[in-house]
């Protein structure tokens, strides 16, 4: 698995050398917010468009939650990355301009938040480029990052992302630091389920989410887990990337919870708090792990299928 053309000092051992972060920080903390509105619900079945109550669950995000989270971040002086599907950007141009004006990064999250597992490559690419164009029209800024709405991309998608000018993605649930997506020129900034609000707090009655309709986790438990994760990120120098949803985290109590947690991160003085784009720019100078599982997947999936 080692590449003899790569000299030892360019390569890291299995498991990776401890990442290095700017300003001598012990770890990186990234805040990312998805503003999906009612699109994930509508993507399940177009016939749901008359189900206004269910749609209003998601619409709380762009209507109310997002601006409350923006206020929290402004009080903290933290810049975040906001993933806004094209259809939401078209419907809420004032919100998108506000996000940009307040110093945040906007990134592509598809056009209609379609599930990639049900799409062929050409449809996945159309979902990405249409969403990118609509977001750019609303924000006035070229999006450089992308997050799959849900599901997995087909072979060739990362290369197409690179060709379209994307520099980074935050789509895979699979690591605690960035890694390159093969030779696509796109860097992956993975998320992790234990750092998501959806996994702990998301709930919908019908159709049920979670499918087993388990109880909403307590904020006390989420806070305790995130505190442990932050301690561990400092110990091992990893990236702690929060994946939040405006309609979930943007209620008054949860926004306060988020503010308290991020305040503790800032007070530690040991974290580099950055946007996805800033992390991607910094990571360009890090040694490449030539034995990363993503490269292994590309080789093995070509053999097996």
């Amino acid at each position, binding site marked *: 698995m080692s590449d003899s053309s790569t000299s030892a000092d360019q390569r890291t*051992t299995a498991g990776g050398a401890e990442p290095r972060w700017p300003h001598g920080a012990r770890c990186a903390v990234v805040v990312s917010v998805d503003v999906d509105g009612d699109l994930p619900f509508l993507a399940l079945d177009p016939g749901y468009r008359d189900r206004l109550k269910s749609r209003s669950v998601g619409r709380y995000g762009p209507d109310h939650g997002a601006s409350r989270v923006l206020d929290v971040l402004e009080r903290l002086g933290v810049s975040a990355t906001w993933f806004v599907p094209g259809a939401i950007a078209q419907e809420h141009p004032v919100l998108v301009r506000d996000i940009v004006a307040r110093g945040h990064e906007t990134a592509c999250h598809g056009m209609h938040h379609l599930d990639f597992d049900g799409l062929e490559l050409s449809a996945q690419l159309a979902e990405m480029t249409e969403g990118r164009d609509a977001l750019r029209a609303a924000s006035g800024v070229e999006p450089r990052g992308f997050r799959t709405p849900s599901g997995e991309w087909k072979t060739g998608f990362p290369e197409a992302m690179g060709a379209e000018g994307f520099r980074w993605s935050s789509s895979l649930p699979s690591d605690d630091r960035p890694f390159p997506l093969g030779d696509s020129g796109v860097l992956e900034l993975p998320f992790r389920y234990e750092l998501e609000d959806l996994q702990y707090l998301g709930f919908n009655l019908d159709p049920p989410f979670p499918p087993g309709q388990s109880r909403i*986790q307590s904020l*006390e*438990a989420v806070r305790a887990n995130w505190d442990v994760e932050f301690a561990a990120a400092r110990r091992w120098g990893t990236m702690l990337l929060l994946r939040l949803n405006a309609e979930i985290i943007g209620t008054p109590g949860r926004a306060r919870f988020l503010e308290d947690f991020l305040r503790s991160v800032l007070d530690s003085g040991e974290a580099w708090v950055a946007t996805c784009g800033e992390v991607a720019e910094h990571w360009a100078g890090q040694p490449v792990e030539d034995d990363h599982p993503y490269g292994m*997947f590309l080789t093995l999936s070509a053999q097996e299928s």
Partner: protein
Amino acid sequence: MSSTVMQAGADVAERATLALAFDLDGPTGDAMLSGALWGKPGYFSLGAYGPHRAMPRILDILSGHGLKATFFTPSWVVEQWPDLARRMQEEGHELAHHGHRHEVFFTKSDQEQLAIIRRSQEIFRQVLGAPGAGFRAPSGDWHPRTAQLLAESGFLYSSSLRNGDLPFRHADNGLVELPAKSLFDDYTCFAYHRAPNFPSGLDRVAHYRPVFDGWREEILAAAEEGLMVSTIWHPKVIGTPGRALLLDELLGTLKDTGRVDITTCLAVASSWNERNPR
């Protein structure tokens, strides 16, 4: 103390034996067996996080405590990460069988089961220079014939069943069994993935610390009765940063009590086998 405890060969009353065990599945399992995995780069990478990222961290934690553990490792993982497998061996850990790609033994004929066991042994010999001595059934159930086939293939022990607080012997074939309980499986509290959904109802990731506290209490209660426990921890699940931190704490706490003997499954099975001849 009851006489059962003495017969079972606990060395000292009021001490627990912890057969410290991990299932190093990597990306093997149902999705690899069906082929669906090759369309799922994210799911593959989540599984591969275990051997690639979590294992070096876990090995450092174990070495920090001077502990040796058993890793039930599908031989596909041994084949793909040979340097890791040799590092584990060099540091005194045990590698034991867990299928080739985490197959479901329950559905297989004798010949199919033997083919998997032999293939795994070949890979163990090739990469590690020695065959495995232990086996833990992957994916739910093993076959009613599996224990017999393992004994005939020269295996000393299995850690597949759930019913017991001490090692016991399979009456028909002499295989030593080190039972491990589902409550010590980290999947039950922490594993999570959407599409494919695990758990099937997508229940929330648990509050970490009470889970580790529960494991500690279960092991200390076993110490009061002089019993054995074994763990079913998955590096890709327990080796993510936050949970690895609490694993480190738990192992330290258990060591500090002075009431828990922590060692490999092979050491526990060998010692029990010597003290309880067939």
